[in-house]
């Protein structure tokens, strides 16, 4: 049963890793603007030139 010590250690370490990843995302401002990227991704770099008129 001592494997539990190891497994719990692993799970806590993994969870800590995710927590740190979240901290990093927060610090680097990834959650500051939650709207613009959703529009930006839809804009093609060079859309097909077609005239509306």
């Amino acid at each position: 049963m001592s494997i539990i010590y190891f497994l719990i250690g692993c799970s806590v370490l993994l969870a800590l890793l995710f927590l740190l990843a979240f901290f990093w995302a927060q610090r680097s401002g990834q959650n500051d603007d939650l709207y613009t990227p959703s529009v930006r991704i839809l804009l093609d770099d060079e859309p097909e030139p077609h005239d509306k008129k």
Partner: protein
Amino acid sequence: MTESTVTETTICYHCGDECLSTAYAEAEKHFCCQGCKSVYSILSANNLCSYYNFNEHPGLTRARTDKRFDYLDNAGIVKELIDYADDNVTIVTLYIPHIHCSSCIWLLEKLNKFNPAILHSRIDFLKKQLHIKYDSQQLSLKQLVELLFDIGYEPAINLQDVIKKQNTIKDNLVQRIAVAGFCFGNVMLLSFPEYLGLSSLEQSFKHFFGWLNILFSLPVVFYSGREYFVSAWQNLRNKVLNIDFPLALGIAVLFIRTVVEIANNAGAGFADTLCGLVFFLLVGKFVQRKTYHHISFERDYRSFFPVAVQVIANGVETPVPLADLKIGQRIVLRHNEIIPADAILLKGDALIDFSFVTGESIPVDKTLGEIIYAGGRQTSEAIELEVVKPVSQSYLTQLWNNEAFTRQQDNRMQTFNERVSKYFTYVLLAIALGSLVFWLPTSLNRGLAAFTAVLIVACPCALALSTPFTMSAALSIFDKNLFYLKNTAVVEQLAKIDTIVFDKTGTITTATDNNISLNGALTGHQKQLVYSVCSNSNHPLSRMICQYLGNIEKLPVNHYKEMPGKGITAFIGDDEVKAGSGQFMFGMFNEEKGSTKVHLMVNGAYLGNFSFKQNYRDGLQKTAAELAAYQMFLISGDSDHEKEALQPVFGSEEQMNFNQSPQNKLGFVQLLQHLKGKVMMIGDGLNDAGALKQSDLGIAVTDNINNFSPGCDAILDGRSFNKLPAFLRFAKSTVTIIHCSFAISLTYNLIGLSYAVTGNLSPLTAAILMPLSTATIISFTTIATHFAAKRRKLA
């Protein structure tokens, strides 16, 4: 002057406005003005015409084409504006009100195609901000702003940039929630075996799990929950008992008892309850915080006055920052610029639009030598003025020297939570000490167990959550109905109001749709004549007449002569058409007080006039009737010519006050407050700013949320004006909901206490009771609030 005969409407390719002339066309595309056309030329020269493919007519109409950014050469001003600068790279954040569609994002993030010196540009769409990193060796801020202006995105620049400040306030609440949530999850995992029962074989784990739990509780108590201790301590020192005190006490007791139990191998401790408590409390805080990215509630005159003004000295124009403007200096103001200080008109035709100040949208003519108060916007050609008062001392801005603005007060009324938590704390401490004293003769251990159990179980978690969750649900309901509240405390204030003071112009009247009516009959031909003449003028009244007459075929106009601010004469074929003010048409003429009229004459024969009156907002009468339970007053800076029309709305004459200065308005609100009224002020312009600030609840009404609105507690979109009675009733319902949820959380506390006073509180009971009460409160408040909103027809 343009001569044109457009028969069908053409729409400007850039901005989508109607083209009144065919003079501006390029590559088979029509434009309404030179400005729009030049934007198109710049974009097409840079191969960026895809801009027009994402959205139809993404541009903003550009009546103005002259640039006025000379003040950006002033190093002092530039320094205030930029975020960061070193030898090569400068970073600046600009607020661009026009950002509104995906085309804007596309274009503004491609700025370096225009100028390679722009290294990087990023839009924050909701905040309407553009972050630019550029090479300051090759590009100055002035050139950058001019480029933005050229492509139709003029940044709004002012030194007191509140929006920017408001959006940069950062704390680590999210991170504290993350830590608490992380620990909560792990502790739950480690506590479960204990609850399910460990066999004798696994007893060694018990100790291990216990110490791990303590380890996880440490960051929860000392990082995530730290603010509760700080706040409780500060309040104790100020001799105030607020809800943070029992919360901090609960957290501390939970932690100490957990450590003691585990260290003595006496039990499993309450680590899961502790982490859950802090986690839910912080989530409550997070929910309560509502941010409107593009709305600011703290604006004063500085955020809408220009940064600098052109001063003439010895025939040379130099930009001078507003703060350095002195009495006696001669300033030049061009079309669309704002008068920054009280000044005497020296030269030019002043046609001043005071809509920012009073809400009145029809511009006013001023004659030479007249004093023009600060805050007006010049709508005709360039004028020269002599400053007679410094910026901060003008008729309008001296309002901000009033003590109402220096007083630092967030909430002018105590919230229910604040009032109740004081008594709650006393009762809680009494019960805890009572049970300690009761058990002490029997056993010290039992006494301490009972004492701590009471503090743990009665920890007002549900109570602390009831207000934030109810209020945030209420706030989103208001938000949906175009009513934007500064914070959650405003809802409770709204429920307590018993006196309402209205401003007139712009508040109960609409600023936009001026009611234009034609007095007299015109034949079809005469209409055509008037339309043709008026369509040549840029005067707002002429434009309104054109709009009123609709789309008529234009006739060629000769000998067009416009006397700015007075009237127009022109010939069409052999017909002489005159349109203008009474004075212009007949020499001496006494216009009816308070009305604006344009008289018409063809070949010397008087045809009648157009009169412009303000429209009252839709359903004003009905709204007022529904508000009959409140004391209502009208306070207006205008003369009393509309008294009779407003009599049925406000009842008696005593409730209407006319000819009031901004200071008077503030004083009137103060007077009502002395008479023990809870005053809500509803206004719109800068002249109401004092009264809005002084009142218990200031609401600014605006027809466009992005426009300027003075500092206030809430901003109401004009379209929702008639929902005001429903808003007030709904606010009262939310307070009732808070009372109910308070009763629910008390019931849970009593159930818990019945266990706790005996000293036999098992960790499992606490671990079930705490999340259960929290879940009940959250679901009850959310459902009840939405139900209340449905009943008021707000959801």
